[in-house]
């Protein structure tokens, strides 16, 4: 069955057909989960954040303006829920020593060179993301994973476009420094 668009299913839900909401969840769960995961840093929290966000969205559907984009509106809910959850958790940031830097460890699973490198880079990125602030994590995710432009990111986060550019610039610099340090450490460890 082809997806008939968010508005169609929202109207169905508002007419009392609650089950139509499952199609909206199916449509947006992966992107929402990715954002929640990148901000929170673990799957359990991401699952809770996303479930809370879908529930909040469901309860506020009456207030949703049909002319605007559901995904932007929903991302805003996920972003706000994730940021407040992470701030209330207040975990200490990871130290560089906590990074599973041993590149050789990634070879033990019988994968190809390409898969291994991809996995290594992914863990390096996740590590670097955990070293920057939750807001910067969100900006990096929305910009690089979701491929959203500055205006869309501004709509979701409520931060001005100019501010987003500045914060993205800083976040990029921080990430590169962290990655460079981790790579250097890895190089020393593995000759």
């Amino acid at each position, binding site marked *: 069955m082809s997806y008939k668009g968010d508005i169609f299913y929202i109207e169905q839900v508002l007419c009392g057909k609650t089950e139509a909401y499952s199609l909206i969840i199916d449509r947006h769960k992966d992107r929402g*989960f990715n954002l929640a995961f990148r901000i929170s840093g673990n799957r359990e929290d991401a699952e809770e954040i996303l479930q809370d966000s*879908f529930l909040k969205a469901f309860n506020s559907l009456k207030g949703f303006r049909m002319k605007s984009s559901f995904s932007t509106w929903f991302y805003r809910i996920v972003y706000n829920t994730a940021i407040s959850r992470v701030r209330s958790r207040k975990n200490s940031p990871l130290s560089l020593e906590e990074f599973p830097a041993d590149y050789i460890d990634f070879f033990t699973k019988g994968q190809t060179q390409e898969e291994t490198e991809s996995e290594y880079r992914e863990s390096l*990125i996740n590590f670097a993301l955990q070293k920057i602030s939750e807001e910067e994590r969100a900006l990096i995710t929305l910009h690089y994973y979701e491929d959203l432009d500055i205006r869309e990111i501004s709509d979701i986060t409520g931060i001005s476009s100019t501010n987003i550019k500045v914060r993205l610039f800083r976040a990029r610099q921080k990430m590169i420094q962290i990655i460079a340090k981790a790579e250097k450490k890895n190089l020393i460890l593995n000759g």
Partner: protein
Amino acid sequence: MDKRDTCNDDFLRSYIDPGKIEKAPAEFTSLTMDRIRLETASHKPDKVKAGRWVVPVLSVLVTAALITAALIFIPSEEGSNLLSRIPGLVPDISIVLPHPDFGFLRDINLPGWMVYGTACIFFLAFFDRALWGLFHREK
């Protein structure tokens, strides 16, 4: 974006694979829908709450039935039942309704500013309500 920032951007893009997103667990939709159904159901008035009027209504009906039965079936001293004696207990009441004279309303002479003042108060009250509705809208 300056040249250095463009380099940083390229460097980061070489590490990030946009196609590699973390996906939600397979059973996520059903679990979320279960939670939504549960929370929606808890907001609906349940049968116990809906039927909270049943007991007092039944009580009133039973009391009324008992009183009626007593009036009909308990015999009075004169051989008839209590019900037939009720009209005799009620005295004749002749009520004369007063005829109010509202003519004085026509004689009231309000100053002109009062009319404008009242209209102004109504307008301000309406405006205030509109502003309240605007700024206290549920998000």
